[in-house]
């Protein structure tokens, strides 16, 4: 079997055993990229030489007897929202085009320390605002299952790269579903860890109280290995949690749900959901029951208002977070011809540098925080957020994990929702509650929808710091379905 079809865990073992070098593995993936990138367009930046140099350095370290982690030498695609010293970092925005950060994000740093080899930076919706990569200032990424469909977003470049076998692993960030929704629509595994479980230092902020770095992979175990490699406490991030957490890798190897209590969220499903999505989802729930889990229905009535609270909180934070892009210290500068004031240059730069969706959210947030509106909008949204957290807590009194479809529909067509922001926002209906509560949630593939043959994802939600439960249940579903299907869902990217 060719190197690109291997899991990250397999590649890590082969490299550690000296059966293959990191350089060979990197080259295999770079070759694959040369072949499929013109169709998929998952990456914003690829630099073969830098990648090979990294792989060579890992090979040297391994040959010198240095003990690195289980993913040493394995290539990874890195979302272009994490700063990287050796590659540009743009957040897919014109305002940062060509910016070379002088520092590595904590996630980047930990990838390097674990010996992962960065293949390049992946596409996203500008500043992670969107569900399709169509808001990227540079190009739209295509879904490897059907090139006319979106790969999800905002981390669509990362999901497409893994689904297209360009990389065995990738990083993402999840603010309202930006990992789970792309994972779901490309048939791979994507995990949003507990908020504070992985560091935001060097992650270009969209909404600080929601942004969470997390892994993409084709298997549950690979995702767990990657999460373990880059997560954990970071003194550079004040909101990073400094507490011992159960091992997610062990949980991913412990695919057993016998006796677990699983709650089906009543409010996430039903009307407005694609029938093929619901069919696969219901089968997954039955499967869990057949594996010995106790399934009960749980009601979380406020989840229906989560979307509205989210679209006040996230834009409010983003309106402030994106204020730093002012042409003064880095990035684009427009209109500095000696006749204009600093304020005018700032305004012209921001007008030219931000795309329409970013501007829409900055304006929404500026309005929601304005004097006289704050209580009615931002203040009220925070109250809803508190209520949602309480409903989660109450639900976790009854059950160990909650489940729902990851998204109401399978991948939609490129261009289908660009003129309808509300329709676009609905893609995150099921994922947003976990962001508001800060708890852990994973999306694992659970089959193809009959009507379009596109992947469907099962979302498994667990309490804060109980990330291990997501992996344990996810691994059980994966194991049972693969034995039913006689192999993984994504044997190869169908359209490539």
């Amino acid at each position, binding site marked *: 079997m060719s190197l690109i079809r291997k899991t990250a865990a397999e590649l890590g073992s082969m490299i550690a055993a000296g059966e293959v070098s990191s350089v060979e593995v990197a080259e295999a993936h770079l070759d694959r990229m040369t072949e499929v990138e013109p169709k998929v367009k998952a990456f914003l930046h690829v630099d073969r030489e830098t990648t090979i140099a990294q792989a060579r350095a890992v090979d040297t370290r391994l040959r010198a007897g240095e003990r690195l982690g289980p993913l040493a030498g394995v290539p990874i695609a890195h979302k272009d929202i*994490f*700063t990287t010293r050796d590659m540009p*970092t743009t*957040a897919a925005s014109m305002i*940062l085009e060509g*910016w070379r*950060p*002088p*520092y590595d*994000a904590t996630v980047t740093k930990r990838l390097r320390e674990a010996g992962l080899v960065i293949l390049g930076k992946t596409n996203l919706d500008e500043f992670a605002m969107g569900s399709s990569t169509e808001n990227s200032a540079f190009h739209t990424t295509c879904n490897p299952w059907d090139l006319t469909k979106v790969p999800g977003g905002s981390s669509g470049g990362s999901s497409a790269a893994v689904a297209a076998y360009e990389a065995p692993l990738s990083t993402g960030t999840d603010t309202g579903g930006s990992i789970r929704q792309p994972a779901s629509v490309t048939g791979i595994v994507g995990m949003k860890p507990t908020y504070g479980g992985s560091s*935001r*230092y*060097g*992650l*270009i*902020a969209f*909404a*600080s*109280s929601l942004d969470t770095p997390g892994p993409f992979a084709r298997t549950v175990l690979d995702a767990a290995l990657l999460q373990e490699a880059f997560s954990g406490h970071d*003194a*550079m*991030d*004040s*909101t990073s949690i400094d507490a011992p957490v159960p091992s997610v890798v062990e949980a991913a190897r412990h695919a057993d749900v016998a006796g677990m209590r699983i709650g089906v969220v009543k409010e996430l499903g039903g009307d407005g959901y694609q029938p093929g999505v619901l069919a696969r989802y219901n089968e997954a729930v039955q499967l869990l029951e057949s594996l010995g889990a106790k399934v009960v229905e749980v009601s979380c009535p406020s989840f229906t208002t989560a979307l509205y609270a989210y679209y006040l909180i996230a834009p*409010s*934070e983003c*309106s*402030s977070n994106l*204020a*730093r*892009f*002012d042409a*003064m*210290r*880095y990035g684009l500068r427009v209109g500095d011809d000696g006749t204009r*004031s*600093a*304020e005018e240059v*700032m305004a012209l730069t921001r007008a030219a540098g931000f795309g329409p969706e970013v501007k829409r959210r900055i304006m929404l947030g*500026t309005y929601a*925080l*304005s*004097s006289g509106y*704050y209580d009615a909008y*931002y203040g009220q949204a925070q109250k809803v957020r508190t209520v949602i957290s309480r409903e989660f807590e109450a639900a976790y009194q009854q059950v160990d994990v909650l489940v729902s479809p990851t998204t109401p529909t399978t991948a939609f067509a490129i261009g289908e929702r660009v003129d309808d922001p509300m329709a676009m926002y609905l893609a995150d209906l099921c994922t947003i509650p976990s962001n508001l509560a800060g708890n852990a949630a994973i999306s694992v593939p659970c089959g193809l929808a009959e009507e379009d043959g596109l992947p469907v994802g099962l979302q498994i939600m667990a309490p804060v710091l109980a990330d291990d439960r997501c992996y344990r249940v996810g691994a059980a579903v994966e194991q049972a379905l693969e034995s039913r299907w006689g192999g993984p869902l994504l044997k190869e990217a169908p359209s490539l």
Partner: protein
Amino acid sequence: MTMVYDEALDAFEPVLGLETHVELGTRSKMFCGCKTTFGAPPNTQVCPTCLALPGALPTANTMAIESTIRIGLALNCSIAEWCRFARKNYFYPDMPKNYQISQYDEPLCFDGYVDVEVDGRTVRIEIERVHLEEDTGKSTHVGGATGRIHGADYSIVDYNRAGIPLVEIVTKPIPGTDRLAPEVARAYVTELREIMRSLGVSDVRMEEGSLRCDVNVSLMPRGASEWGTRTETKNVNSLRSVERAVRSEIERQAGVLADGGKIVQETRHFHEDTGTTTSGRSKEEAQDYRYFPEPDLVPIAPDPAWVAELKAALPELPSVRRKRLQAEWGLSDLDMQAMHNADAFDLVEATVAAGAPPADARKWWMGELARRANETGTPLADLPITPADIARVTELVASGALNDKLAREVLEGVLAGEGTPDEVVEKRGLQIVNDEGELSAIIDQVLADNADAADKVRSGKIAAAGALVGGVMRASKGKADAARARQLILEKLGVSG
């Protein structure tokens, strides 16, 4: 037209408010590890966080939080059990994030007070809040006439100051100061400065901007119960300016009101050169800062046990120290207050510690040296003379080696950089004439030259001896011991004193 101060106060009563910013003397910045050394080359004390590079995050400086709590405790404040930072959003080129991390409706310390003494009266200034925030960078506007951003050819920004911890201390409105308003304002800032010094949390140098003051003033007609519209005067950068700014704003507002005008709620700028204020931004143009809780930082929840420890470990506060010193030194309230206003406590205390009697130490610092400081416009503490020098001079006077006039000359020599008091005495030859033979010879000459006066004394008009003593002092160039000279004159003329 402005109104003269006394007339203004006949018609109106002022209400004051003060907002003071104190730059903490922590070694690193508020939200990153950068150094805070004053005067370092531009943009050498910066990092991704204080430059607001994409992705960088703040982490709170625990020492700064501790200092703020200590300040709050020293100002008799309650300490919040739980509070958050907040973002104050506005665009300005020297503010890297285009928001300032500050505190909004949840200050770390609140509801305190500080007592100040003015003109024998104790005035209690109530403190509304003490909160922690970060400083901005510093812009320099090159070209243009005003040095302001408008009209400049270009501007350059130094981000070394960006992110230095600032504590903001806000008073509640202060009514009832009446004619003493300017003095109360000054006494309050002076008191704050001493408290900061005693806590060791800041070097509180107004000229370097580590203590900055905004002065709010409003007037109401005498007998009225509702306060008037207030203005906020910024850029008040010395104790003297605090006093002048209040006075000038009272005069200006009284003039406007007396002419039937209205006070506009606005920011005003104080000008050191003219001692007056000019209009800045009005309330209508004022920004909506869109405050919201800072999501990048976890809330501050000081452990009550820790706060109690900090409270127990507070140093002796300046007002307590003053009471102690007054008792030890036996000085009057007025003497103590004059010393306080002149910022002379540390100097006098150090001089006493160096061996001088308290009354003498006070006399020199508050007399000759205060006069010199005033003449040259130098703060007392910056005069080139040490408490030890003063103590030595008082010792020389006490031993009879110097008289008062010579002592002044010695001080002049020390201030002129001629060395220690002993070196000046040596170089300038300022010892009192102790040689009886030499003194006797001078007296004989003076008696011969002033036969009339000598006769008067002989005939019992002892008061006439003063002129003869004066003659001896002149002849000796002030080096004679006047008392001894008088004694000898009387002896020689056969009368007993």
